[in-house]
């Protein structure tokens, strides 16, 4: 019984549509849970700026406020270990997701970002057996997700030597920055057959290509509504084919249920994995219909889904 337990969400960034969708999902799922007395409280906290130090302070405050469990989307896999350790020492259940922490006392709901990168190449290899030149759009320098996905992409290219990464730019996971960086490097690049991305930058890349007289390459998308809409338009117009992959913002609700299960005394392994949310040519329309205008394709989890994930890991 967890009806007297309270759970907090510690979030480090709210400045893009993915995070906003994540917060919305949290509200949609935890609201009824609190109402139905499953837990006593489930509050969300976001730091003012995307900084490890701020999130560490926030976690310390949550410890002080006496939450029984803290669900974390971490700014850094290692930078919060000090604060997480303190929480564990205070007897608090810590569950991290999306941005997971390495501190052993915490639970991790991990997404294999490395695989997210290599899967993109695998898909391209399927579509373009002859290979060719690729353009890589990276995220924000110095952040681990960027490093992980990029490492996955490079590993994929090693596995499929018919591909070569002809250019690599930092798009900072921002539409306008990606668009500018791609437009700047594009004139100097040879023919590009595919663009590998990290999420949120596919539409910017498409715009940059559209502004030139180049042929539109296969741009891997990141589940944003505008990306899917563009893809749909292209698909209807000329049968454009690609894939889209990203982690579903609703994974925050999975983390919520996992925390609830741990509090309930369930035996939960420390490491859980969630699949990414992948959209393909055939389920594009369906996903597009389910995606909020201007938002991100999403999946929300129920208690049963969570129990399934836990059972699978055991």
């Amino acid at each position, binding site marked *: 019984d967890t009806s007297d337990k309270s759970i907090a969400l510690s979030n480090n960034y709210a400045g893009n549509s993915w995070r906003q969708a994540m917060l919305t999902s949290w509200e949609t799922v935890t609201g009824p849970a609190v109402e139905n007395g499953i837990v006593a409280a489930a509050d969300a906290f976001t730091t003012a700026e995307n900084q490890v130090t701020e999130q560490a302070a926030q976690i310390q405050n949550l410890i002080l406020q006496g939450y029984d469990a803290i669900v974390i989307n971490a700014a850094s896999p290692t930078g919060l270990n000090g604060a997480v350790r303190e929480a564990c020492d205070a007897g608090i259940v810590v569950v991290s997701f999306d941005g997971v922490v390495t501190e052993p006392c915490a639970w991790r709901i991990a997404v294999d970002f490395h695989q997210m990168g290599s899967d993109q190449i695998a898909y391209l290899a399927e579509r373009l057996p002859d290979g060719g030149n690729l353009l890589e759009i990276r995220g924000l320098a*110095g952040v681990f997700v960027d490093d992980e996905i990029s490492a996955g992409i490079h590993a994929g290219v090693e596995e499929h030597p018919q591909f070569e990464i002809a250019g690599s730019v930092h798009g900072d996971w921002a539409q306008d920055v990606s668009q500018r960086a791609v437009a700047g490097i594009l004139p100097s690049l040879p023919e590009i057959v595919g663009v590998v991305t990290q999420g949120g930058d596919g539409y910017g890349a498409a715009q940059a290509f559209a502004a030139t007289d180049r042929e539109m390459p296969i741009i891997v998308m990141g589940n944003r509504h505008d990306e899917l809409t563009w893809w749909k338009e292209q698909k209807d117009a000329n049968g454009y084919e690609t894939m889209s992959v990203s982690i579903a913002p609703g994974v925050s609700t999975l983390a919520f249920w996992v925390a609830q299960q741990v509090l309930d005394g369930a035996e939960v392994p420390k490491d859980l994995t969630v699949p990414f949310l992948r959209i393909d040519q055939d389920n594009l329309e369906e996903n597009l219909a389910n995606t909020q205008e201007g938002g991100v394709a999403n999946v929300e989890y129920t208690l049963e889904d969570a129990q399934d994930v836990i059972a699978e890991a055991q």
Partner: protein
Amino acid sequence: MSLRPSVDAMRLVVPTLALTALLAAVFWLQPRAMSYMGLNLLFNLAVPIALATLAQMFILAVNNLDLSIGAFVSFAACVSATFLQSTPLIGVLILLAAIAAYAAIGAVIHLRNLPSIVVTLGMSFVWTGLAVLLLPAPGGSPPDWARSLMTTKPPLVPMAIVASVIIALIAHLIVTRSSLGVLIRGVGGNERSVERAGWSVLWAKTAAYALAGTFAVAAGIALVGLTTSADANIALRYTLLSIAGVILGGGEFVGGRVSPVGAVIGALTLTLAASFLSFMRISPDWQIGAQGAILIIVLALRLFLNRLERQEGRA
């Protein structure tokens, strides 16, 4: 003439009041904070901020402004989490070289009469770039001594408070007790008069920048000791926090009017203000705005204090 509290003490009144009021409010919202562990949790992340604030204070003392403190602390943190941990000798050498670079920037700014804002803006790119080269992704681990120093549990009073007091004391000794401190503040107050007494203003400014570099390096090490790892963007926020902390602690942008104890109090206040906001459960939408609002309120308080001081001066 009547005995009246020194101006230094006067300068500390408002910051101390603000801190006390905030602390009272936090205790009221969250009685659990009123404990050894509670105080430590509230204040331990203020220690690196206090050090960075003191670094900024040395720059402000000579009428300059440093926009690269945050980037530099991040860089120092990255060095601490990598070289200082694995090959201490090289780590120490890198950090010393960084401090020397800081001092050299101060000298160049003085010699060529450059705007410090723009030079340090440029340097902030350089430090971040170096940090990214050093740690392309977050990682590293703190030197053991730094970790154990930041997590010791002294009897009675938590480490965060002990450290803050010690840091404030050391800075106070340097700034208000030592000859060098007097010289640095003198340069801020009236450069010409210092020059006329036969001192080298160049040297004083260089020393101020070197001291700033030293405190910023200490901030980096303390930060890594707390967070257990570093990344290139870890302390970017410190630039703003440090400026706000100095001003909050009764310092001023020009005129060499700074107070190290005030600066530490200012840093603690800022940290506490963030906790206060989170205890208040402000909607996430407005959490950033609330920070701006708090800054504005405190700066308005400062104006009020200045008015008061001027009135007293006239009376």
